[in-house]
């Protein structure tokens, strides 16, 4: 079990990579134009996350002030919008998102021991006031989308005395969504402030490409192959997927691919074209569309697809499409550009 969201980004700090070597002869910072584009495209994604996070926090606050079934449904919808906004930028594993483990704060995953449920039960039983400080010191399993999802969607919890809109639970929901909103806002601001640093250092070109490579790898291996039973012990299990409580594991994958297409692909295509690989750039763009063509049909719960062999075929074709995309980006393009990976957090068991 390994959480790939933890990234130390070693290789970027120690390696003089071929990509940089190749550009060293050109005028200073030959890849700076691509980073300008990436910076802007990722900023768009972060700003969307900040906006959706604010909407979620306001919606949760207004629901808890005047609870109603409609308000509950609207809160779920706001959670989903914000969660999908996070999925779109989830691949970025460097820069301000590393600060204080923000990526984990947004989404602590995987959580095989159900730490989210345990922490919720602990906080609600303890009876201590739920304050912003309490959320800040309670660890990453409390601070993000999975906790809000647990409160809004968990079936067992929703059947209990603590179910929303119970007073203490409402306070927890309001503070957790506030924490998400604040994190989203800070992340967008910090990313703006990171611009000079990002543009000023050529090694961030490799770093950005590696983050997309890792994002695709996580998508293929951990988010899809593992619950499909294609990895590890061969058992199909929806609990290995993320967002199984809200049944949005697949929608989240679609959002992650869409996010890579919007925030990573444009500058990457230009870079490949400039390196005399326009055909490969075109193939990759087409393969993104192949993957996305599985949606919105596949925006549905994963569990029934795992339980039924004929429905499982839908997952298999998504898997094949994603594998091909990963192979184009991580093998062919990375080789052409000379981007190599060092040790990362996925090297454990």
């Amino acid at each position, binding site marked *: 079990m390994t*959480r790939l969201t*933890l990234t130390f980004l070693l290789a970027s700090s120690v390696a003089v990579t071929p990509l940089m070597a190749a550009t060293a002869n050109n005028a200073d910072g030959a890849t700076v134009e691509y980073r300008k584009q990436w910076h802007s495209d990722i900023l768009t994604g972060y700003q969307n996350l900040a906006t959706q996070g604010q909407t979620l926090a306001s919606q949760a606050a207004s629901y808890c002030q005047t609870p109603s079934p409609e308000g509950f449904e609207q809160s779920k919808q706001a959670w989903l919008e914000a969660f999908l906004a996070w999925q779109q930028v989830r691949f970025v594993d460097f820069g301000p998102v590393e600060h204080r483990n923000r990526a984990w704060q947004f989404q602590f995953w995987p959580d095989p*021991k*159900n730490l989210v449920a345990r922490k919720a039960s602990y906080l609600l039983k303890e009876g201590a006031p739920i304050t912003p400080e309490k959320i800040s010191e309670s660890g990453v*399993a409390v601070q993000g989308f999975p906790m809000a999802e647990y409160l809004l969607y968990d079936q067992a919890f929703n059947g209990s005395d603590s179910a929303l809109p119970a007073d203490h639970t409402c306070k927890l929901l309001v503070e957790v969504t506030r924490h998400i909103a604040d994190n989203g806002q800070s992340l967008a601001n910090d990313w703006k402030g990171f611009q000079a640093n990002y543009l000023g250092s050529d090694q961030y070109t490799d770093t950005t490409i590696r983050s997309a490579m890792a994002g695709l790898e996580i998508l293929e291996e951990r988010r899809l192959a593992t619950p499909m039973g294609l990895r590890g012990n061969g058992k199909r299990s929806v609990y290995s997927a993320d967002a199984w409580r809200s049944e949005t594991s697949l929608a989240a994958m679609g959002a992650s691919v869409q996010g890579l297409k919007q925030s990573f692909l444009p500058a990457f295509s230009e870079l490949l074209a400039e390196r005399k690989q326009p055909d490969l750039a075109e193939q990759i763009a087409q393969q993104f569309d192949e993957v996305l063509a599985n949606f919105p049909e596949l925006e549905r719960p994963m569990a029934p697809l795992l339980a039924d062999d004929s429905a499982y075929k839908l997952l298999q074709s998504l898997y094949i499409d994603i594998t091909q995309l990963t192979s184009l980006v991580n093998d062919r393009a990375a080789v052409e550009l000379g981007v190599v990976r060092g040790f990362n957090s996925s*090297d*454990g068991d």
Partner: protein
Amino acid sequence: MKTLFRPAPLALTVAALMSAGCANTTSPDAADSQPATKASVVEHYADVAHAGYEDALITAKALNKATDRLISDPTEANMKAAKEAWLAARVPYQQTEVFRFGNAIVDDWEGQLNAWPLDEGLIDYVQADDYQYELGNAGATANIIGSNSINVGGETLDVTNLTPELLANLNEIGGSEANVATGYHAIEFLLWGQDLQGFEAGNGERPVTDYATGADCTNGSCERRGEYLDAVTDLLVSDLEWMAAQWAPNASDNYRSQLMNADANEGVQKMLFGMGSLSLGELAGERMKVALEANSYEDEHDCFSDNTHNSHYYNGQGIQNVYTGDYRRVDGSLVSGPSLSDLVAQANPELDARLNAQLEASMDALGMMKAKAESSQNPMQFDMMIAPGNAKGASIVNGAIMALVEQTGSIEQAARQLGLEALSPDDAGHAF
């Protein structure tokens, strides 16, 4: 330099084979008097592994004897002796974990000995209201000791005779990795019991009367509990016998002979890959960072005995052993020989000095964790260090994490220095 490279889960790639050709096995005597070569370094690596597994075996046999005494005569003194034997057995074993990554034969085997975290309710009684098990694990509360037949996910199994073979076959039953029926942590649970203290001081509190006979027996099924403990310690010994033999010199059909007959670059890759993977992904990441950032004592490595600080410390020691070629055996003798350090020093003395200093700094940081946990005044164990709001504890754990992260950077550089490119993860199973 275009490397035909695929990311996980594929193999390490040798970009440039710098050294000349294959590993001709050199005898240790010859190697002592000559400059280190990749071949002599790999051979000595096998010597260190062999000594480590022999020590693990020696201490496991002592543990087996101590648990046999506990089972036949369940006294407080014998319980204490068994626990001490378990703690002693962890010292050499944890130093061998660095051999896991890169050597598929170890990685495929080690689950039966050291898998964690485990859903201990598979094995014995647990206090239900404080027991979190893996989501979807149908075997999490099976309680093998409590009955002669268990049902896991609709499948009924006869577990009347608790033999080593039966227990080995129960691992990962129902397809869940948390169903760990054997190994150090199963034994640990049988000696200490469930840790119900959370972030507070203290560990499991299993009464010795859990092994008593007749009316003195607590929590039921004491005889079966003894049979379980007997079988699981026997299995540990036979598993370690097998692995020690794989690394023994002068055999023609074991793992060591394969390693010696392969290109020496492959062996050097395995060494560096093992060091880097254990340093970063496993020890710094999975075993410390996750536990710390989520304040999760469920992610604590030796949670029943609160021996986590030693598990981490001796993991770190194992990494240093592989680089320096030095290994201090449990009898106090020193194994030493041609080392990775020698090889790196030949090519880049500055890098060698830096990596040696970083390995030393990691051992200092892990040593501080160990000292704090074992302090006679206000000891702070790992599960207390990771408690919410414990800034001092967090800084101790973070210090160790950062030291390990730094040394990993130099391990990558050492790999490049020795002509090995792209130490990509999850190599297990592809090299041989």
